[in-house]
């Protein structure tokens, strides 16, 4: 089973967000939601690969460990954005948004590691040609 992600609609959606003059906090909020939706979709792909016997128990165990890191990083990122939502003055908000970059980097690293593994075992494609 291979998970194919359609790139063009995503790029169009990204342009729409940019054109709408989205604030950095809104951008971070969408990041939380988008990551949740995408990772949950990937989790469902892998779960079905497991149920279909396409991946081995050992591969699935490794994936579960990597997915747990994604879940932890997303939890931290989500909490950080939720905290930034409570800030009213612009100066403090800028500080919170700066700190968010660290959470985002951790989340990205966790997702990258998990996807690289899924590419290695053939559940996902490694690259997409536009």
């Amino acid at each position, binding site marked *: 089973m291979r998970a194919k992600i359609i*790139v063009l609609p995503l790029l169009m959606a990204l342009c729409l967000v940019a054109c709408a003059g989205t604030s950095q906090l809104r951008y971070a909020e969408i990041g939380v939601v*988008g*990551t949740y939706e995408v990772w949950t979709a990937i989790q469902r792909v892998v779960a*079905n690969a497991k149920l279909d016997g396409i991946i081995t128990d050992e591969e699935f165990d490794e994936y579960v460990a990597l997915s747990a890191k994604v879940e932890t990083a997303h*939890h931290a990122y989500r909490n950080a954005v939720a905290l930034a939502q409570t800030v009213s003055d612009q100066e403090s908000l800028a500080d919170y948004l700066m700190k968010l970059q660290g959470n985002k980097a951790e989340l990205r690293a966790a997702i990258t590691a998990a996807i690289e593994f899924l590419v290695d075992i053939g559940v996902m494609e490694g690259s*997409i040609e536009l």
Partner: protein
Amino acid sequence: MIVPATTVVELALVALDGLTKMLALFQKTGEMPEHIDLDDYKMKSAMEILEEERAKREG
């Protein structure tokens, strides 16, 4: 042009259902909400998802 899968996922970070959710809220309320309620977006574990998918198959 070759785009790494990780880049695609990063793009998806800022788009996809986040935008859909925003637009749905906009249509519902007639104005852009100040914040998105992030309590609705707590990730489930891989095992929870596996059990959900198994349950779907078993009807």
